[in-house]
């Protein structure tokens, strides 16, 4: 069989019709698709079923490009693609994005997911358009409850997500939260190497936990809880709470200390202290922590989460019969998530039992849009590029294909708007 070509069992174009292009990233591209229809008929030739029995109407197909641009050879599948394939195949939970199948064809990997119409980044963006409106308290509570449910499932299965942020949390048109993008996720049960040694940098900077910023080598699922705390704050204020600037890695040198990001956190929470976080002095970047206030004196007079919260509720037009503000227990939950010491930070299990969810005796709905009139715009799908392109030059940028920036304005611009 040496030299015998690999023959795929299923072909992407035999089963799916590509509707359009959704987005692209370092991994490859995502397309929207529906089940293949026979020409002249509106009936799908095949029907994909969700394990719970319903038909799946639309799909998001993630196409991984080979490691090198325009590479015509098999180069070996990237470790992050392998992780995502293996974990998505293994895991199944209502609050996780559902993987329908994986097709390996033409040196490309196609991961076929159930389509979700929205994501939290879109929803935040929609509310930040003028006139600025707050995310209704009931929706917020439902979103958070579903996120924690999905996160508890991940952590119970020894998976740390490691890249939670609003863009990676999908929302279906029926208001179900779907945690997505497990490309950085990995198992943490007795890793063969320290988790640190594999991927030096994890979690998008704004959502990165303080122990990561301080160079901790043996981090834990608590990093996901910090990220969820940041997401919670962002859903409340419609802006990233700690919007730092990433210090870029210079050539092959060591990972730099993220002074600016640490400063942004310090402006609100104050810098961490040994009394609150006993293991703090053991952090590799602990000596650098003392330099943060020289660059950012704001950390000496932090505004504190209480004041941040009051300002946010006020500035975001919460109030009135239309949109009552969240219960005060929201602030308490936020404080316990944005806790410096990872050992004291709330776990997903504890968070689900927090009074914010259990207080009034009625658990949040699994439909975050329940009782709402707001209609969110559907995901933008560019129909210019129908081809998923299994044939020619996989992974190369083609002229006429929309770039990321056209579909999703750079985050900075969006936030200012």
């Amino acid at each position: 069989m040496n030299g015998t070509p690999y023959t795929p069992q299923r072909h992407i174009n035999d089963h799916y019709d590509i509707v359009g292009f959704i987005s692209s990233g370092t991994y490859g591209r995502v397309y929207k698709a529906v089940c293949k229809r026979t020409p002249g008929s509106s009936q799908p030739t095949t029907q994909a079923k969700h394990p719970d029995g319903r038909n799946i109407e639309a799909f998001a197909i993630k196409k991984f490009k080979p490691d090198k641009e325009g590479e015509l050879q098999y180069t070996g599948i990237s470790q992050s693609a392998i992780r995502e394939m293996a974990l998505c195949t293994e895991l199944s939970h209502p609050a996780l994005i559902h993987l329908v199948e994986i097709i390996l064809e033409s040196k490309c990997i196609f991961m076929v997911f159930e389509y979700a119409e929205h994501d939290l980044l879109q929803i935040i963006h929609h509310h930040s358009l003028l006139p600025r409106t707050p995310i209704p308290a009931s929706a917020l509570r439902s979103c958070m409850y579903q996120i924690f449910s999905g996160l508890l499932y991940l952590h119970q299965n020894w998976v740390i997500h490691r890249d939670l942020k609003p863009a990676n949390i999908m929302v279906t048109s029926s208001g179900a939260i779907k945690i997505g993008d497990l490309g950085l996720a990995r198992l943490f049960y007795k890793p063969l190497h320290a988790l640190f040694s594999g991927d030096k940098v994890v979690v998008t900077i704004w959502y990165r936990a303080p122990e990561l910023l301080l160079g901790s080598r043996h981090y834990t699922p608590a990093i996901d809880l910090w990220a969820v705390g940041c997401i919670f704050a962002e859903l409340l204020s419609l802006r990233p709470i700690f919007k730092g600037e990433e210090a870029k890695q210079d050539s092959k040198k060591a990972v730099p200390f993220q002074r600016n990001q640490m400063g942004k956190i310090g402006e609100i929470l104050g810098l961490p202290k040994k009394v609150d976080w006993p293991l703090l002095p053991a952090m590799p970047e602990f000596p650098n922590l003392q330099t943060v206030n020289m660059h950012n004196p704001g950390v000496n007079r932090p505004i504190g989460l209480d004041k941040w919260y009051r300002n946010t509720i006020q500035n975001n037009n919460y109030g009135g019969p239309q949109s009552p503000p969240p219960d005060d227990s929201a602030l308490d939950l936020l404080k316990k998530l944005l806790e410096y010491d990872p050992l004291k930070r709330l776990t997903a299990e504890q968070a689900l039992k927090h009074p914010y969810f259990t207080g009034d005796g009625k658990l949040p709905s699994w439909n975050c849009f329940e009782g709402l009139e707001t209609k969110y715009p559907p995901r933008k799908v560019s129909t210019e590029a129908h081809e998923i392109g299994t044939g020619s030059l996989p992974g190369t940028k083609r002229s006429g294909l929309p770039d990321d920036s056209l579909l999703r304005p750079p985050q900075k611009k969006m936030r200012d708007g």
Partner: protein
Amino acid sequence: MAANYWDSTQAKFWTFTKPELVDMRKDLEKANQQLYNKYPLPDRRLMSIYIQQQLTKLGRRMSLRQQALATAQVYIKRFYLRVEMRKTNPYLIMATAVYLACKMEECPQHIRLMLGEAARQWPELGVSESSKIGECEFALISQLSSRLICHHPYRSLTELSPIFGLSNEETQLAHSIINDSYNTDLILLYPPHVLAIVAVFLAVVLRPAGQPAGLQAHSTHASASQQSPTQASPTSATGFSPTVSSSAAQQAFLGGFSGLKQAGPKLSKLVDWLAESKVDMNAVVDATQEMVSLYDVWESYSERACKEGITKFVKDGGTAGSSGVGPK
């Protein structure tokens, strides 16, 4: 997935009954009758021993972890349930399984390094481009239906050792017995904790605390007991042998299950614990029998016979492997 072995793809899709395994293999044989006639091979377990020893040698060259090698062996086992071995180049499958397993077990190796080391060890590999490993990786993942997370008995052993107060030596012996179990179908038949219990049982019976390794055979695995159990056993290139001799395993099996209470407190604790646990005792007994039977068949192992068997169909690859690793 550790919390939920019962929800795992291994439990749901890659665990079979014995009759199911027999049927799958019969189907493969029926579909490839001519190849079977033309290229007879030694007992499947002996072929597994050959593959394991080859992987161990490669693992030693590359300082790979035992767990990655175990995962690679599981991939190979599953793959050959779906694809006839005589239609493949087992060396390419081995190299690819190790390459994939290393990524899955978070100790990735560069594809070119993998090719280089595999080619050096196996002149029969027959490929000189890393893209061939990349292509074979697609075939492998496709046959495995992307179900790549494996549950091994090693983790259960780590949990069981303190419960039964095993000495380091006993734990190491149990660890080596688990290594040996990959030469049977057990990982396709039973949950990993059952295999760990069998390994603990055999280890305790074979080496009661405080006694010299009386029942224990010429094991090279045991001589590695000072080594970290996560490293591939640094067995000498020529000195591969089973952890347990056939006769010792027989004795252990007969003795252990006929109420050999005098074997010491560890064994009686194990027996009591098993009686109270919900562990499937039939599975434990059957798996122990399979191990005893493995050590029996191991006595007839000949590396040369396995190697030559493979070489024949690999050499004739042009005719034998016309349909390659791709499905039909």
